[in-house]
């Protein structure tokens, strides 16, 4: 088994593969390229160009177009809870710079309100996207899951990818029974399966201030779940379900996850 660890997508990424279809360094370089294209913190990124062009149709690459389609699907799958249009609320809450640049306590959130439905803020047509005036998006965890899926495909039929904690496993793993990965307080075997964790235990900058915005209020979520880990068939689904479960809380999350997830752990 070959492995490689490097920093991208706001965290540490890991690649594992048995007889990889391409050098792991090539997959890492591809992930780094996508990171530069999709980050909201670089004014020159493709995503920043889309945000800056709000109100106009903007030409987008197939990668960004696909991700925006996934974002609209995620909004539907989560009943509106996973909403990439949270960026203005996120900035209002104080998360306006890369986490590595944060040295001082960030500002208190402004008075916030519920976000407009995503389909009212984001439109797609062939090769182009349009944001409503004043709207801006942050692909966040959705991009991590999307990249993990495609990176695993690039590495071949027996690979495991972690994009800052979002996992996508393909094939039987190094010993034939699946890829052993930590999930909640257990270790499970993943084969053609994904895992993701959403939580408020990191990226906090004050009491009740963190990076997970509840689109129903426009403010950082305030539920009784601090971490939600979910297993699903795809990394994007796992990411979407984990975030929705966290926003729903322990009373509503199990019913929501039943039939959608292959497993979950709420803490």
């Amino acid at each position, binding site marked *: 088994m070959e492995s490689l660890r490097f920093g991208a*997508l*706001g*965290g*540490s990424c*890991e690649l*594992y593969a048995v007889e990889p279809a391409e050098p792991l360094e090539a997959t890492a370089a591809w992930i780094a390229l996508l990171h530069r294209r999709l980050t909201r913190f670089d004014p020159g990124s493709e995503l920043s160009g889309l945000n800056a062009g709000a109100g106009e149709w903007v030409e987008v690459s197939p990668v960004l177009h696909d991700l925006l389609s996934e974002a609209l699907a995620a909004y539907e799958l989560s009943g509106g809870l996973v909403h990439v249009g949270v960026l203005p609320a996120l900035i209002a809450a104080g998360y306006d710079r890369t986490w590595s640049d944060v040295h001082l306590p960030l500002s208190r959130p402004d008075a916030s309100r519920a976000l407009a439905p995503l389909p009212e803020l984001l439109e797609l047509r062939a090769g182009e996207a349009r944001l409503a005036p004043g709207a801006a998006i942050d692909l966040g965890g959705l991009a*991590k899951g999307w990249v993990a899926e495609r990176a695993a495909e690039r590495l071949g039929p027996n690979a*495991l990818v*972690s994009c*800052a*904690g*979002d*996992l996508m496993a393909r094939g039987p*793993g*190094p*010993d034939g*029974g*699946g*890829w*052993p*990965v*930590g*999930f*909640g*307080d*257990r*270790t*499970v*075997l993943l084969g053609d*399966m994904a*895992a*993701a*964790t*959403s*939580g*408020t*235990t*990191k990226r906090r900058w004050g009491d009740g201030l963190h990076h997970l915005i509840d689109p129903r209020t426009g403010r950082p979520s305030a539920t009784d779940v*601090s*971490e939600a*880990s979910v*297993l699903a068939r795809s990394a994007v689904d796992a990411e979407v379900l984990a975030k929705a479960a966290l926003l729903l809380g*322990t009373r509503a999350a*199990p019913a929501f*996850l039943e039939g959608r*997830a*292959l*497993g*979950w*752990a*709420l*803490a």
Partner: protein
Amino acid sequence: MSAVLLRVGATAATLLALLWTAGYVAANPKPSAAPLQPSVVVPPMVTPSPAPAPAGRRRLAPSVRETALPAVTVTHVS
């Protein structure tokens, strides 16, 4: 005369001190395995791990198998 006696006395005192310290060191070797005094409590190595989920907050589909194998990696908040 007194200067000579002083020199001889100082030399003798130095030699006696040297011999005594060498003898003391030879007679009291430091055991390398001796416990530290006072005893030092070494905290167990702490590795980040997810908070355990209480019963009712965790579910795995029958198709998902648990294992005792060491995890290659872990899903986590970033």
